[in-house]
Every structure is written in C-alpha cells, then in structure tokens.
C-alpha cells in the first residue's frame, strides 16, 4: 500500500525563490513602517490610529506587527457564490485555482453589430454580462466599460443594475462613491435574502482603487469602509506605472504597490476581522515612447506572477491581470499579448485574473477579445491541469493488449479518458483544407464574431427574483432623484 503518496498532477511553476519573497515581504513592511502613505480620509486615519498606526497629518505609518496581524486575519480560502445557487457558477478561492473575468471602466466599446469603436453606453452592459455568463472559461463578471449615456455620477450604479439580472456568475462591482456602493449592496442583498444570508453566501465583490504612489484617496477608502462594515469581500487594487508612478524596477514596483494594497488590508481587517480580501492589481510599465500604461508589455505578466507569489507567500489571494492588449484592433498583436498574459496568469494560479477583454491599453472594451481569450484560457487550463500519473493512466496492460501494429480507437481505456485528457477548441479550426474551404474559409476572427453573436441571440441567463427587480427600479429612481439638479 502506498501512503502519503504525493501526486503532482498540476504544472509546477515558480518565479521567485523563498529568499527573494522574504526580501520583498520585508521591503513592503519597511515601506509601511518608515515611509507610510497619505490617507485622505479622517475616519480611516482614526480607525488606523486606534488599531496602532502612527498618524501624522495625512501620513499614516503602520508598524510591522500590525500589518502581520492583519495578514493572519484575512482568509486564503473562501467561496464567492452564484446568485442563483448554480454550483457551476460558484468560485472557490484557494491554492492552485486561477479564475478569469473582464475589467471595468473602458470609455469605449467595440459595437457587437458594426464591430466599430464607439463610446460605451448603457445598453452594452447586459450584452457583456450575457456573454460572460455563457463563456465557459469566464468565471466572474465586470462590464468592460464606463456607462457614458446616463448622468455622470450614476454610471457605476447603472452598470451593476445592468449586469446583475444578466448573469448569475459573481460580479466584481466597481463604484464611484459610497452612494453607489449602498445601491449596489441593496440589490445584491435583496437577491441573497437579507444581510445575514448575504454574509454567508456573498454574490459580489467590491472593487476599490487607491492612487500611486502611496496615496489612499477619499473615495477609495470611503468605499472600503462601506464594504468592510457590510462584510462585502474586497479588492483593493493599485495601478502603479513603472518609471512613472512607481520605481522602474520590478522589485521596486512590487513592494510599493503591495504597500498601497496592504494599507487597505490593515484598515479593512481593523473594521471587519476575517473579511475576504484580495490584494491587487495592474503592475506594468510606462511605455517610454508613447507614454501609455502598456497592458501588452511582457513586464505585466512578469510583475503579476511575482506579485501573485508574494500574495500567496503571505496567505492572501490576488487580483491578477491578463488577457489584455495595447492593439487597437482584433489582430495578431491582440491575440499574442492576450494569450501570453492569460497563460502566465494561469500558471501562477493568481486567484481572480481581471481585465480580460481590454484592448487599446484599457481604453476600449471588446467582447470579441473576451471570447477569443475564453479560448486561450481553455487552452491554458488544459496545460496547467498537467498530467496525472497512476497505474490506470500509465496504461501498461492496454499497451500490452493492443501490441505492435494495433490501434487504440476501440479501447475502453480510450473511451474512458478521451473527453477529459483532450481539450476541445471552440474557435480554433482543425479541419482539413477541403472542409475548411467548404465551410466558408472562415478566419479565427470570423468564428469569434459568430460565437459572440450566437450567444447574444440564444443564451438565456437565469432570472433574478421579482423583488430584486423592484429594488433595482427603486434604487435607480432614488439615484436619479439625488442627481436631478444636474443639467
């Protein structure tokens, strides 16, 4: 009998050594203790001071023990739940599990009919949610845009109201301020069946973004406080830019960005011990010619892999980034940049990998890029699932029976495994030339567009409760009332 038999069936990948991780960890603690951050929120500074932070004006410095204490309180494993109870749409956060989804706030969108770039509008939200709901390798939902055709303060609220009924996958909710957060929470809690039920089975995650270098803005912290008090799982994700708003070196941007994220962690755990918390975010370089934040740069997946390992080293899940491109169109660049970062992200097991479907350096959201990346994620997941080695998979007797010159097509062993051992593409074409010609000589792009349009024509997400529909209407009406004095 074999006991304590270790099966390394997944792919082993490690970028940094334990010594390097310890140095990064010590670097973050040092920054927090000696440099600190500016926190533009009176109440947040009070809470932190009471918890043991040193406050001097706006500046907040965190002693290392306080940060370590917060790290021990935050869970490494937990579940985000589908609003309709569909177990396939639940997300189990934990070691070795990479999940994927889109990002928020692109000002532009690729129109699903004309395939042209134009400003993002309210009616795009349900389409994005529906496509996410249908794609098998997309696990959580964001909107890929900032709603431009409603009052400018209500974009985030209309975004959530448009997504929630059109997908049962967990949503990552972005918002402008506490008003949005309260509206979003009311909708989600109604569907969950009350605050207590929501706390047991949270169906969305709240997203906040501090400012680099080393600033916690009023809005970011204000939303964090709201989410922590209502026990909403939290993402606190900075977007430092190497060479611009962060050091030019990978090690430098990682410790600065982690310090920005752990200020949020320490605050959140002081308010709500044990709150599920993701450190983030987007760690890439400033292109020194175009001055853009480069989403397609190899430094993005490299930095994100290192950040994932640091997060896991200290026992936190990570808000990863991938499936993104600087390309302006659906072309080879978009697919190379998107696929490489998706694969790297899958290798690291970074827990929620966002921004899938971003094009033009996050300026334009595209469900076509998203659908293409769904294919790349499937491909990547097959590889990272690895190879299982045991008596049955070794197939010694099968090989013996088939012998020289035989074939395996009719073997029970083949029938038992072929569906799981092989990955089946949805968009990549493997037909022979004649069949491909007969089927209209389609390109990868043609098939991606067709798949998206087919999903939009046929996919039916599960419905929300009637009372939730009423609450959505009520929340939007109240919000419109609040801003009615805007011209």
């Amino acid at each position, binding site marked *: 009998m074999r006991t304590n038999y270790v099966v390394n069936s997944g792919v082993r990948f490690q970028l940094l050594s334990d010594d390097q991780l310890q140095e990064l960890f010590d670097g973050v603690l040092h920054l927090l203790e000696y440099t600190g951050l500016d926190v*533009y929120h009176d109440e947040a500074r009070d809470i932190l001071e009471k918890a043991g932070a040193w406050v001097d004006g706006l500046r907040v410095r965190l002693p290392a023990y306080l940060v370590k204490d917060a790290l021990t309180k935050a869970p490494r494993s937990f579940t985000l739940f589908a609003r309709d109870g569909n177990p396939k749409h639940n997300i189990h956060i934990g070691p070795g599990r990479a999940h994927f989804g889109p990002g928020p*706030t692109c*000002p532009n969108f690729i129109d699903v009919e004309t395939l042209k770039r134009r400003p993002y509008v309210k009616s795009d939200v349900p389409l994005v949610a529906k496509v996410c709901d249908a794609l098998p390798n997309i696990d959580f939902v964001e909107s890929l845009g*900032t709603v*431009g055709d409603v009052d*400018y*303060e209500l*974009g985030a609220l209309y975004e959530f109201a448009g997504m929630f009924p059109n997908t049962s996958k967990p949503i990552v909710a972005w918002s*402008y301020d506490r008003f949005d957060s309260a509206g979003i929470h009311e909708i989600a809690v109604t569907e969950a069946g009350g605050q207590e039920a929501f706390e047991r089975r949270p169906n969305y995650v709240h997203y906040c973004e501090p*400012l680099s270098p080393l*600033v916690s*803005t009023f809005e970011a912290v204000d939303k964090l406080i709201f989410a922590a008090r209502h026990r909403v799982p939290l993402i606190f994700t900075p977007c430092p*830019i190497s*060479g*611009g*708003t962060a050091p030019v070196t990978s090690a430098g941007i990682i410790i600065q960005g982690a310090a920005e994220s752990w200020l949020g962690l320490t605050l959140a755990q002081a308010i709500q011990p044990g709150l599920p918390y993701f450190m983030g975010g987007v760690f890439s370089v*400033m292109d*020194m*010619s*175009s*001055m*853009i934040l480069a989403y397609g740069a190899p430094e993005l997946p490299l930095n994100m892999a290192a950040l994932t390992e640091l997060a896991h080293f200290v026992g936190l899940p990570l808000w990863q980034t991938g499936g993104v491109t600087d390309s302006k169109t659906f072309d080879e660049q978009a697919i190379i940049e998107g696929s490489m970062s998706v694969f790297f992200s899958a290798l690291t097991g970074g827990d929620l990998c966002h921004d899938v479907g971003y094009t033009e350096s996050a*300026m334009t959201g595209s469900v076509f890029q998203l659908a293409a990346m769904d294919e790349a994620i499937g491909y990547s997941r097959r590889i990272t699932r690895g190879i299982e080695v045991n008596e049955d998979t070794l197939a010694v007797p099968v090989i013996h029976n088939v012998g020289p010159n035989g074939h395996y097509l009719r073997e029970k062993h083949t029938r038992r495994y072929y569906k799981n051992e092989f990955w089946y593409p949805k968009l990549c074409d493997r037909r022979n030339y004649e069949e491909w010609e007969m089927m209209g000589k389609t390109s990868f792009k043609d098939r991606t567009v067709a798949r998206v349009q087919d999903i939009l024509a046929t996919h039916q997400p599960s419905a929300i409760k009637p009372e939730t529909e009423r609450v959505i209407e009520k929340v939007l009406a109240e919000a419109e009332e609040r801003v009615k004095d805007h011209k």
Partner: protein
Amino acid sequence: MSEILEQISTAVIEGDVGEIKDLTEDALDEDLSAEEILDKGLTPGMDYVGVEFKAGNMFVPEVLRSAKTMQLSMDILKPLLAESGVEMVGKVLLGTVKGDLHDIGKNLVGMMCEGAGFEIKDLGRNVEPEAFVQAVRDFEPNIVGMSALLTTTMRSMESTIKVLEEAGLRDKVKIMIGGAPLTQAFADQIGADGYASNAAAAADLAKKFVSA
C-alpha cells in the same frame, strides 16, 4: 555657427545638466546675445530632440533631461531676454481639476512644454475653478491646460471654463485639455480650444496656439 552654440545644442541633446550653465556663461562672455543663444543653441537642440523622440530613437526620460538642461540655461537667459524686449514663446498655466489627485500626465505636459520654450506655472492637483481664475489674472498665461483622469472629475473642466467666462477671462487664453478618458468631442462639447492625447501632442498644440 560658432563652436559654443554647437556645444550648447549638443548639451541640450545629451541632457548635460552639469555643463550647461558654464556653457551659457561662456557664450555670453563671447558676446553672444541671449536671443542668439536661445535661437541658435537651445532651440535647435530641442528641435532635434523632438524629431528623434517622434522617430522612437529617444525616450521620455531623455527628453525630460534635455528639457531640464534647456531650463537651466533659460534661468540665466530669461532676465536678459526680458531686458532686450524679446518675448518668450508663451506661458502655460497647468492644473489637475477639482476632485482629481492624478497628476503624472499633467506633470509630463509641463515638462514637455518647458522643453518647447514655454514658461510654466503648475497649480498642482485638485485645483478649484476659482484658483484657475486667480492664476489667469496673476500669471497672464497664453494657454490654460487642464487635466483629469476620472470620468466624474472631467466635468470640473466644464465648470472651470464657465467660471473663466464669468470672470471675463475666457477670451484672453486658449484652453487645452487632456487625460485618459477625454476626447476631441468632449473638448468641443465643453468649449475648450483643443485636446491633446499625450504630453508631446500637448506641447505641439501649445506651439500651434501661440503661432496662430
């Protein structure tokens, strides 16, 4: 062209912040006028940098170093230019609008415009419309540049323009705007004179405004 002017051009191109002050003093000692040093030494150097930057042969940190080099020389030349009645290219007033703390893009615009020969006043970030008005009165810029990163705060640009109108100052300045979510269409909608998609384009636009 005299050797010293060539050396000044080269110093600007190479971003030689250590040598530029001495070179400028040397040129003045050789009885070259401040205007000649500017027109035949500094400006050709910065023009070369601009061309190389657009061609992808020079990068932002080098361009900023060149701009800084030019700036150090201009600190010496400015009073002399004023004495002899030579006008500067122009003045640019900059700020990130009310509610917004993001200012890396705006800082880049300032450095790029400085490199193009403009005098810059930077009001920083989270700038109230009234602060823009006061600075337009005091600093008398040719151009006001406003920056925002957030879709919520970009609306402050519109109110800033309104307040400038109410103060009777709108016609005295050209207004340019920039920031990730902005577009030419938004610039037109709020009545700005121009939009630039990056810092180099902003410096070009500023030059266009003052030469028009």
